[in-house]
């Protein structure tokens, strides 16, 4: 087991890792930018090194500075948290070359799954369903052929596009060529490249992800699913486990596919396989996150496994702490509390003048903020994760409502009113929602205004 872990991150996740280190008797080193001089992770770590000015590029993404900090403090392992350098295979390589244990998956697996095209190919080879799709389409024959193979409805996407732009949904064959032709013209204008490709269109998909974990001794396991369909502009707002709609047969297919997948690529440490679940019960691989996720506490509460401790143990060469699948016990919901206007979602940095976080049985709060803390403007707006656990989904929802009502954060604006709207929404309570839920909720409010 290593002796000293440098946490290449900030905020609540840095605290999370420091806590795990403390419990395991490991020394912790915090790194921080000048904007984070008063941050909790700096105060709680055994040592702290300032690594740069506020911009992430010059601090939390600054590889030479971080490696240098590990050198001067004598750290022998690095935990990258999530975001920042956590999925940077080059950084993982550099750590290894400098004799630092990387607390994460092998760099090759990171590279493979970080490349969308190679990842799809690897998953298909492993028998994991991927969203039927095509490569770039060059003529009408190819377009018709692709649609035949994929099956309607299809979505045409610009190869050079992104952010949801340049997409055309086609429900029937008669509209296909026109849509492709118009799409090409628009793509040329918007992105300078007319090329389009095609995918099966999932109308009201749910985002279901599977937590996977593997050690360096050939043990590949899963820790169940998380339902993450409550997203605003592709940013998750609320996550829960188990999913309200997943039947055991589908769950088994998802988890078995996921375990097969990580075994086929020789993955180690923790990771998450993200899927789209179509309204007809079909699921399709979307991507894999080769790191710890923000919403990992949801899984921790329903399975009882400490994922960060597991990460550290795996990196140190120890076997998984569990040998059998852990069916979910009770229900967990995570609420992401952000420093943003609850209506416009504009970020709201500033000083927190009053703070009361909820507590009591089944309430976990992962946060780096405190009364008097100044939320800097340079980083993401996450203030706290409030994770609620109770015996079933309805009880967890009641507890979540109680928590939202109890929370006090003054001095800045937060999305607490928005969270309240979600958990009080009848469709959400019934478990009837998909990835379009938040957009529709916000459109409702906008049109009612």
């Amino acid at each position: 087991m290593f002796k000293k872990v440098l946490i290449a991150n900030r905020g609540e996740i840095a605290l999370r890792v420091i806590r795990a280190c403390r419990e395991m008797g490991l020394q912790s080193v915090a790194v921080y930018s000048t904007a984070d001089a008063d941050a909790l992770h700096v105060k709680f770590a055994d040592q702290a090194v300032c690594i740069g000015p506020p911009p992430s590029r010059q601090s939390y993404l600054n590889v030479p500075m971080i490696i240098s900090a590990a050198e001067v403090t004598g750290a022998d392992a690095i935990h990258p948290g999530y975001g920042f350098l956590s999925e940077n295979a080059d950084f993982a390589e550099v750590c290894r070359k400098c004799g630092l244990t990387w607390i994460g998956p092998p760099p090759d697996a990171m590279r493979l799954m970080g490349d969308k095209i190679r990842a799809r190919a690897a998953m298909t080879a492993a028998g994991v369903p991927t969203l039927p799709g095509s490569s770039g389409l060059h003529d009408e024959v190819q377009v018709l052929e692709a649609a035949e193979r994929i099956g309607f409805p299809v979505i045409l996407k610009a190869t050079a596009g992104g952010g949801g732009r340049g997409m055309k949904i086609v429900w029937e064959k008669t509209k296909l060529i026109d849509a492709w032709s118009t799409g090409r013209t628009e793509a040329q204008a918007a992105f300078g490249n007319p090329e389009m490709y095609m995918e099966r269109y999932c109308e009201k998909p749910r985002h279901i992800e599977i937590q996977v974990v593997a050690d360096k001794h050939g043990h590949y396991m899963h820790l169940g699913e998380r339902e993450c369909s409550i997203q605003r502009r592709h940013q998750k707002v609320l996550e829960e486990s188990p999913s309200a709609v997943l039947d055991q047969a589908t769950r088994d297919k998802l988890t078995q596919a996921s375990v097969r997948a990580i075994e086929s690529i020789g993955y180690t440490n923790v990771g998450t396989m993200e899927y789209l679940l179509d309204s007809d019960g079909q699921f399709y691989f979307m991507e894999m996150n080769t790191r710890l996720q923000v919403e990992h506490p949801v899984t921790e509460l329903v399975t009882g496994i400490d994922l960060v401790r597991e990460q550290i143990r795996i990196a140190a060469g120890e076997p998984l702490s569990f040998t059998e699948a852990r069916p979910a016990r009770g229900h967990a919901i995570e609420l992401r509390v952000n420093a943003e206007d609850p209506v416009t979602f504009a970020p709201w940095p500033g000083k927190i003048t009053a703070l009361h976080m909820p507590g009591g049985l089944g309430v976990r709060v992962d946060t780096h903020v405190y009364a008097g803390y100044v939320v800097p403007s340079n980083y993401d707006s996450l203030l706290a994760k409030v994770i609620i656990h109770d015996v079933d989904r309805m009880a967890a929802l009641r507890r979540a409502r109680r928590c939202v009502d109890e929370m006090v954060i003054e001095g800045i604006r937060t999305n607490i009113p928005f969270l309240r709207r979600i958990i009080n929404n009848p469709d959400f309570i019934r478990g009837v929602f998909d990835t379009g839920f938040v957009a529709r909720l916000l459109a409702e409010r906008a049109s009612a205004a």
Partner: protein
Amino acid sequence: MARGLAEIVAEHNLSELIIDSKELTLTVRRGGTAVAVQALPPAPVYAPAPALAPAAAGAPAAAPAVADKSHVVTSPFVGTFYRRPNPDSPNYVALQDKVDKGQVLCIIEAMKLMNEIEADVAGTVLAILVEDGSPVEYGQPLFKIAP
């Protein structure tokens, strides 16, 4: 008010009456002496900041407030501070040396690379704030130069 309270105390044969509110704390003791009156500030509505772990090693980034007009040269890197290019050479600078702008003051070694740190003003070296061979962090004060 005190008279009224004294009456209440007497009427109910109390030995002590304590009033504790947002604005004040008042104790009335019968037969005894002092009536303690204390105005309290309103109770805070939030939890205090958590008890802090022992101070982290490594100075905070901000340069110390300098009462004098001297210029502080701070470290642009995390690394190890050396006063000379190698053990056999003399130090780059000594106290009271006059230095030009751009003159090399020290080396900061980071990841096996030796980075020369130059003076950003001309002047006299008033203080050398770090010991030879010790680790430094970004923003750490290294030299004081009187322009």
